[in-house]
């Protein structure tokens, strides 16, 4: 059944290219593909929760267990909302003449392939297949980032492409080192994730450490860990808003999935946990600090949100490095909450940018009067990005704080408090100065399209429900995933 998760977006992408002359059909096909993927993902996770043992499917290419279920369900479900938002967004851009009608097929085709590649990465059984899928996400998203075909978007696409490709190639080298270090030569174990996790030979520890370092640096480039994050603000700000949402909200998770799986494989060997934690905490703190500090100084609204992504992934990495059930749980929950809140923020910023016809924040004032239904929630969402209730980020950041305090890492706790406060203040300052106050004179009233508002409202409701009262099955899945990683 797992192949049914990937097949709909794959087919939808192909069909979008075939029918690129009929935009309505293309939109419907793409959205249907995403929804079907989400449906089958939920069914597969249900099947898993019934037995609570991982299973392989479709000639053994795909593998579902707690961790891959957790990541794939987040990806598939949030993607539906983003596809719906795309409909309104692209229609608006076509109406404005920024995008040609003939480009719509390209957009939805690439977006569907992108989704299919992401889902393949989470569900792949073998590390190299996962790697190839992550490489495929890079390839699919290059032309999505350069979609507007301006000089700055081409620049952003090139930076994204070359930095990520080089990083991922290093990650492949790391994966190969990992397999070499763990599998004794001459053994016939396949090298799939479950086989690797079942191995208990004492390997060459130095090799294992080098392998993990390569993987962390390689996939960390794609997660956006400082100092490998230099492509992130450019790519996320130059892309169309729904693409930014999917990049920030979902792709960063997929890259982190690679790191999580590698951690899961190497953790049982002694002294690996300390080594891995050291690296993860280092990168996490650096990303948290740099991301938080840079938020204030941005003028472009999407660049600001991109740095917020860097900061949030820093918190995830930090929590993961701190380890233990609480740390890993906080990391995963923060990742899930961020995947809900960040696309929301991008949705709001997209609508705001359309209303004011600019992405530069100094020129956006009084949004509460022009688009009240979007601007007021935007303030709360911005607060939520930095960790305020009722968003899930509050609980997760509290959890990270608790872990760091209970393990005696006072400096980390202090850094966490300081930098999240800085991020909170910067975000709130920027967004509320956009929202409140008088609107510029001569401002046309703006009513966002139905699909954009519908997707925004739906995702907002979904996020609030997940923050206050997550469904018990989801919590159970999270518990199983934490147990699988941290024991």
């Amino acid at each position, binding site marked *: 059944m797992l192949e049914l998760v990937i097949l709909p977006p794959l087919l939808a992408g192909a069909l979008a*290219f075939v029918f*690129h002359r009929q935009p309505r059909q293309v939109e419907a096909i793409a959205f249907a593909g995403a929804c079907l993927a989400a449906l089958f993902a939920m069914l597969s996770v249900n099947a898993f929760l019934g037995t609570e043992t991982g299973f392989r499917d479709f000639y053994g*290419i795909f593998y579902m267990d707690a961790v891959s279920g957790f990541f794939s369900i987040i990806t598939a479900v949030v993607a539906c909302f983003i596809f719906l938002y795309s409909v309104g967004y692209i229609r608006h851009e076509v109406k404005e003449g920024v995008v*040609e009608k*003939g*480009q719509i*097929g*390209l957009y939805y085709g690439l977006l569907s392939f992108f989704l299919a590649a992401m889902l393949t990465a989470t569900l792949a059984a*073998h590390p*190299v*297949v996962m*790697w*190839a*899928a992550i*490489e*495929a996400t890079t*390839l699919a998203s*290059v*032309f999505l980032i*350069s979609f507007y*075909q*301006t*000089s*700055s978007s*081409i*620049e*952003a*696409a*090139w*930076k994204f*492409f*070359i930095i990520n*490709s*080089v990083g991922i*190639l*290093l990650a*492949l*080298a790391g994966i*190969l*080192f990992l*397999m*070499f270090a763990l*599998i004794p*030569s001459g053994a*016939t174990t*396949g*090298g799939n994730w479950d086989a690797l996790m079942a191995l208990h030979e004492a390997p*060459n520890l*130095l*090799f294992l450490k*080098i392998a993990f370092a390569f993987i962390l640096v390689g996939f960390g480039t794609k997660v956006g860990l400082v100092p490998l994050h230099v492509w992130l*603000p*450019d790519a996320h*700000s*130059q892309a169309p808003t729904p693409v930014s949402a999917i990049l920030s909200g979902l792709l960063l998770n997929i890259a982190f999935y690679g790191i999580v799986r590698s951690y899961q494989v190497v953790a049982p060997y002694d002294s690996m946990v300390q080594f891995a934690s050291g690296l993860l905490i280092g990168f996490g703190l650096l990303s948290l600090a740099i991301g938080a500090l840079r938020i204030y*100084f941005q003028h472009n609204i999407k660049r600001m949100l991109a740095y917020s992504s860097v900061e949030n992934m820093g918190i995830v990495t930090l929590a993961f490095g701190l380890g233990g059930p609480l740390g890993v749980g906080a990391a995963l929950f923060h990742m899930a909450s961020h995947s809900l809140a960040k696309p929301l923020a991008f949705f709001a910023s997209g609508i705001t940018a359309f209303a004011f016809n600019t992405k530069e924040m100094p020129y956006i004032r009084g949004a509460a009067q022009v688009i009240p239904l979007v601007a007021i929630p935007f303030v709360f969402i911005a607060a939520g990005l930095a960790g305020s209730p009722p968003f899930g980020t509050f609980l997760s950041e509290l959890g990270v704080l608790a872990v760091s305090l209970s393990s005696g890492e006072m400096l980390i706790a202090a850094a966490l408090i300081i930098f999240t406060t800085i991020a909170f203040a910067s975000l709130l300052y920027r967004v509320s100065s956009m929202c409140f106050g008088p609107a510029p004179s001569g401002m046309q009233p703006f009513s966002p399209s139905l699909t954009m508002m519908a997707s925004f409202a739906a995702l907002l409701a979904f996020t609030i429900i997940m923050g206050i009262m997550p469904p018990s099955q989801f919590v159970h899945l999270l518990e199983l995933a934490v147990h699988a990683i941290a024991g």
Partner: protein
Amino acid sequence: MADILTTFALAALQVVFALVSAPLLIGIMRKVKARFQGRVGSPIIQPYIDLQKLLSKGSARSFVASFIFTIAPVAGFVSVAAAALALPLLSPAPAIAAGIVVFIYLFAIGRFLTALSGLDAGSAFGGMGSSREMLYSVLIEPALFAVILLVATSGSVDIAPLAPDFASWQALASTPAYWLIAIALFIAVLAETGRLPFDNPATHLELTMVHEAMILENSGPDLALIEWASAVKIFLFFSLMGILLLPGGLQASILWPAILLAFCIALGVFVAAVESISVKVRLFKVSELLIFSLLLALIAFLTRIFVAKPDGDGWLQTLLALAMLLTAIYAIFSLTFRDRIKLYIVQSICLVIILLQITLANGGEGMNYLFLLAIAAFKIIIIPFVLYHSTSWGMKLMPLQFYLRFGEAQKKFKLDLEADPLFMSAPMTTSRALVYAGVLVTLAFAVSSVLGGTTIMLPLSVSLILIGMLIIASKTHLLLQLLGFLMMENGVVLLPYALHVNMPFIGEVVTLFDLVILVRITLLLSFKMKETHGTLDTKQLVELAEKR
């Protein structure tokens, strides 16, 4: 007493041997060069006749010259003759156990004084020659020194052959390291003795002279001594190469002087041939060539000291992997785009042969061979073809261009790669990039030997990956970065075979597929970038840089 007498006699004989053989060597080299140029050339004994002629004349010295002008030729000659004592020319032990350091620096005395005498005569060309000679010596000496040190096995500064006896020489000569050492030594010796492509000894145009300009003012016996000294220097350096590279057992035999002379003459013929087909390199490329020779010696040194698994890979695999690494290092130089594509083709061919041999040895099924065929097709034929013609109609092969509306852009201009003025520009000079390459290769070998239990293919493939990254970092042209990336990818494809890791078949297929799409996307992006930015120089990608 008899001891001392025999020692002196032997020493004198050694010096005489060197002094007498050197002009013969020069004569033969000139004859070979003349033949290459289609002339009959002067007879082989012509240098002797020239020396005799010069010695019979008187010297004309400038009235502003000081005592330096008088003593420089003599001092140079004497120091060179003394250096002849430091080599084991006649017997296994040299007349003076001076070591390599003294040997090289004896020549420095002569060079120093000759440079001063060039300034001494007060002519403009003399000063120009002296400054050039000094610049060259600054560039050459460290490289020569480092090559010799890397080559030495005895752990001391004694001049000893690399292989003490014939059996070990056979073992050594079958490793690629030996040939790398030979090439590295050859380049360094060419530089030190002032032959093409570093300096043209036969030029009569003062502006192209390096060594000759210094000695323009010398005449008569002074000139005779200087010419003789440079001839002996050439003879001694060739002998040094012979001593290092030939099996040590030969030195004990009675025919050793004859063997050495024969080797020097053979090498001289080879050098003359190389000189006839090469051009003088520009001044800034001198250091590049020398660092390249240093890199070769470094790689040879690393491969020799790397402790590999006993049942390691065959010599063919090691040779091919080394060839891949060397093509990557050669790609650091400034080359045209199409030459780089040829380098990539060579590298891919080596890769496919290695993979084929490993698959044959491990007994793969038909699918593996099919996959190998696909790799060969893509890396050797399709991707280079697309890149080669990316300047013109190759772009028509891309169906995506229909969607991205590149059609009009394509009609408006061509990707004119060769004429792009920023084509060769780089944030990092070639010399510095070569030095970094040496550091990276050393790092790869060091880490691999610490890890232990691997074959030599591991550090070679890791070095290839690192050098690929270096090429990406050191070039600013978008398509050159792509080629660096392709070379890096070659290294990563080699890695699982180097580590004997079984990749699943589907992983290999998808990796290949990714590569193909990657190349197409880069070309499309480059096209778009040319359209929007007007150039492919990535230094111009600064619009998104944040201003403080």
